[in-house]
């Protein structure tokens, strides 16, 4: 122990230069996931300690933790609610380091709510470890996990074929599983797939190469995780700078704070602000630690510009020669995360980069069964369902396809009533206006040719929050008919109904035409009040015929003013009830 502080300094100097790998583990307890994670956490700490050669260690303390006595799963035990119910809720994050890298594991349960959990845990991951039991090989769950991983655009997958000790470390068993898996995932475009035979329990090929599998020529799991090249997974091509916060501490400084979403920006670069289209040049890339010459993702910086142009949060700075898509209509893969099923008539908040706007789902093209990958028709998506949808936003978005640029292709939907994050989406691409037209299916086109609207009565009823109906008022006194009609209109409007009045007397429409107009508007979901030209037999009465969707009624009302008022209130009371 001559100079221990020097050694720790060396260690810290080395440590501070390490990079970060975020990884996702998918698989169930049965696959030995907890054991594997526990081993990575535990063995890497031991490794770490071994690194500190000059350090004094209490060997007894370390020695006590003999690995045979360790229940790795206990290292990972979670919330009280989980322990009581024996289930794992949601995503848990674990941290470990080796002398080469720091790791963040998003640990997601494989069973219940798997889609929601895996998507949540995987959104920030560079790499996914999919666990397979060597005895069972590729199963439905493996396929489901792989599909979700490809959907999230995770570029590196490790297929960890676990429990090799239980199949006599057989190469042929391993090769068969690898073949099955590669055939299955071929359409998914996962660029980097590593298959590693291991036994988490025995430690084979986890940290050290296993002597039991000399036929395996690759790296052990930890060695692979330490060296896999993920830096270039970032998009360094297309400069996108969503403005997050505008800083004006004094009159001389106006900074646009943000995180570089993609691409590289250099001092002096010409930039254009979206949506204004105003151009300027980057005057400085300011940080607390001094100015930078260039910045790249995921750095958080503050840009100042040569010219005083107005840019606010939610707007974007880009290079003029390389614009993102700009538009209000796009297609996306949408994962529904909420107990409350999608509502096609509802507007949601959509948050994309730093930009929040209102949006609605135009159509669900199909939904995907994550177990079979089969596509089927659907009107809406429910919890854990995934579908290809078209969306329309109120404000234009500045985006790229998710596969090219995750940060500018991802968005979330927020329910405006519960404020819950109800869905998450990955943009496929913009839809041009001509494609929006072709969006109409044959089914709808056939209906349209028969004069049936593509917007159903149900949808209209939902939007207006009312069922359409017609009140036809007949009577000899035009004055009494109008009194009833306009009082009714007033009161129905007061209670939130959308009402149209047709004064057939003033318009000189005969009964038949008035009737047809009334019915047409009712079909549009309106509450229609028709002042018809018809008489009512005597001067003392009005006759009101009410036609609703499946029923009708007729009442007779005295033309005395107070009787008309009370008749109107009767109608309103009935509706309110």
């Amino acid at each position, binding site marked *: 122990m001559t100079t221990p*502080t020097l050694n720790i300094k060396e*260690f*810290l100097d080395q*440590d*501070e230069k*390490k*990079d*970060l790998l975020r990884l996702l583990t998918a698989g169930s307890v049965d696959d030995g996931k907890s054991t594997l994670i526990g081993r990575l956490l535990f063995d890497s700490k031991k490794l770490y300690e071994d690194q500190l050669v000059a*350090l*004094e*260690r209490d060997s007894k*303390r*370390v020695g006590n*933790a003999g690995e045979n006595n360790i229940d790795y799963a206990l290292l990972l*035990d*979670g*919330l*009280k*609610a989980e*322990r009581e119910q024996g289930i794992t*809720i*949601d*995503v*848990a*994050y*674990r*941290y470990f380091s080796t002398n080469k890298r*720091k790791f*963040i594991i998003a640990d997601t349960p494989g069973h219940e709510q798997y889609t929601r959990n895996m*998507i949540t845990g995987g*959104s*920030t991951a560079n790499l996914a470890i999919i666990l397979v039991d060597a005895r069972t090989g590729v199963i439905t769950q493996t396929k489901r996990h792989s599909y979700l991983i490809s959907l999230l655009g995770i570029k590196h997958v490790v297929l960890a074929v676990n429990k090799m000790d239980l199949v006599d470390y057989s190469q042929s068993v391993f090769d068969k599983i690898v073949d099955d898996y590669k055939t299955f995932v071929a359409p998914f475009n996962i660029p980097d797939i590593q298959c590693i035979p291991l036994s988490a329990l025995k430690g084979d090929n986890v940290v050290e190469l296993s002597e039991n599998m000399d036929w395996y020529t690759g790296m052990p799991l930890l060695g692979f995780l330490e060296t896999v090249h993920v830096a*270039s997974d970032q998009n*360094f091509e297309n400069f996108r700078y969503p403005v*997050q*916060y505008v*800083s*004006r*501490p004094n009159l001389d*400084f106006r*900074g646009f704070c*943000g*995180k570089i979403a993609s691409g*590289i920006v250099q001092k002096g670069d010409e930039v254009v602000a979206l949506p204004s289209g105003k151009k300027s040049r980057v005057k400085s890339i*300011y*940080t607390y*630690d001094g100015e930078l010459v260039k910045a790249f993702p*995921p750095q*958080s910086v503050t840009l100042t510009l040569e010219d005083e142009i107005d840019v606010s949060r939610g707007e974007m700075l880009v290079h003029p020669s390389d614009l993102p898509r700009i538009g209000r209509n796009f297609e996306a893969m949408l994962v529904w*995360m909420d107990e409350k099923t999608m509502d096609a008539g509802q507007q949601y908040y959509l*948050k994309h980069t*730093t930009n929040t706007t209102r949006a609605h789902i135009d159509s669900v093209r199909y939904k995907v069964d994550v177990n079979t990958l089969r596509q089927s028709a659907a009107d809406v998506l429910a919890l854990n369902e995934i579908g290809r949808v078209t969306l329309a936003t109120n404000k234009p978005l500045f985006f790229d396809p998710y596969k090219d640029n995750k*940060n500018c292709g*991802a*968005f*979330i939907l927020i329910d405006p009533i519960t*404020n*819950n*994050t109800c869905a*998450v989406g990955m943009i496929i691409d913009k839809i041009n206006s001509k494609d929006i037209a072709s969006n109409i299916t044959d089914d709808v086109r056939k209906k349209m040719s028969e004069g049936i609207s593509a917007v159903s009565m149900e949808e209209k009823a939902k939007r207006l929050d009312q069922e359409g109906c017609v009140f036809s008022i007949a009577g000899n006194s035009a004055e009494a008919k109008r009194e009833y009609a306009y009082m009714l209109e007033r009161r129905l409007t007061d209670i939130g109904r959308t009402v149209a009045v047709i004064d057939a007397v003033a318009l000189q429409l005969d009964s038949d035409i008035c009737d047809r107009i009334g019915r047409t508007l009712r079909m549009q979901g309106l509450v229609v009040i028709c002042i018809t030209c018809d008489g009512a037999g005597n001067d003392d009465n009005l006759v009101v015929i009410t036609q609703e969707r499946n029923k009708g009624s007729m009442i007779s009302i005295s033309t005395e003013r107070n009787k008309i008022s009370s008749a109107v209130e009767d109608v309103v009371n009935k509706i309110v009830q």
Partner: protein
Amino acid sequence: MSEYKLSHLKELEAEAIYIIREVAAEFQNPVMLYSIGKDSSVMVRLAEKAFAPGKVPFPLMHIDSKWKFREMIEFRDQYARDHDWNLIVESNEEAFKAGVGPFTHGSKVHTDLMKTQALLAALDKYKFDAAFGGARRDEEKSRAKERIFSFRDRFHQWDPKNQRPELWDIYNTKVNKGESIRVFPLSNWTELDVWQYIRLENIPIVPLYFAKERPIVNIDGNLIMADDDRMPEKYREQAKMMKVRFRTLGCYPLTGAIESDADTIEKIVEEMMTTTKSERTTRVIDFDQEASMEQKKREGYF
């Protein structure tokens, strides 16, 4: 492409700055909870970085339980002055006047009244809609599962089974009146990261973190410092000078010291790397009841 690669600390820093700015941009009335501990010190530095050259656009708030180490309070006041921070200090004065303290009422009652209730009252008083905390996910089991933007209902409660999905770096900041979000910019930092960052950035921290001879009493196996005369005499008279330091800081009667010679950050890290006890084991409050941190979080304490 290595010239375009960030070290893990720089990546964590960039992530935290982004989170802090997102709160400043999207909430009406945020506050940064400041515990005077090392994590708070790092968080405060990150906030300064996020808004430089401007001032941080929200206040710091310290919930003073009235039983903090004296050195903590001195450090707090000095720091706020030097850095021109808008510092709010709030306490449960009523309970304090009634004489509530850990020696007389036990850790559970003390923590509930002087920390949890004081915090909730202060959040209500100022109607903060977002509150930053320096908690890390590697600290404790229930924190490992908490979101970075953690929703709290009108009663400041956390519902672990009903957390909002949190994807990419797109944070849902929508709340209704009376509801709020706790935000944890250091979620992905480990204890080692925090020390590394303090070392790299020369961030000042309370001297109690460094080993020094201090008057120590062994109470039920915890090494408690005799910090003032409110410690009952039967304990105070047992006090012996011992070379100790503190891994975490809180109310002095509830914070156990460890025997140590580590008087520099390097030595602290060295000690940390070779110890098998986790950081919070020196906190007396965590052992009150089964899963007590989770319980406290549900009740509104971080």
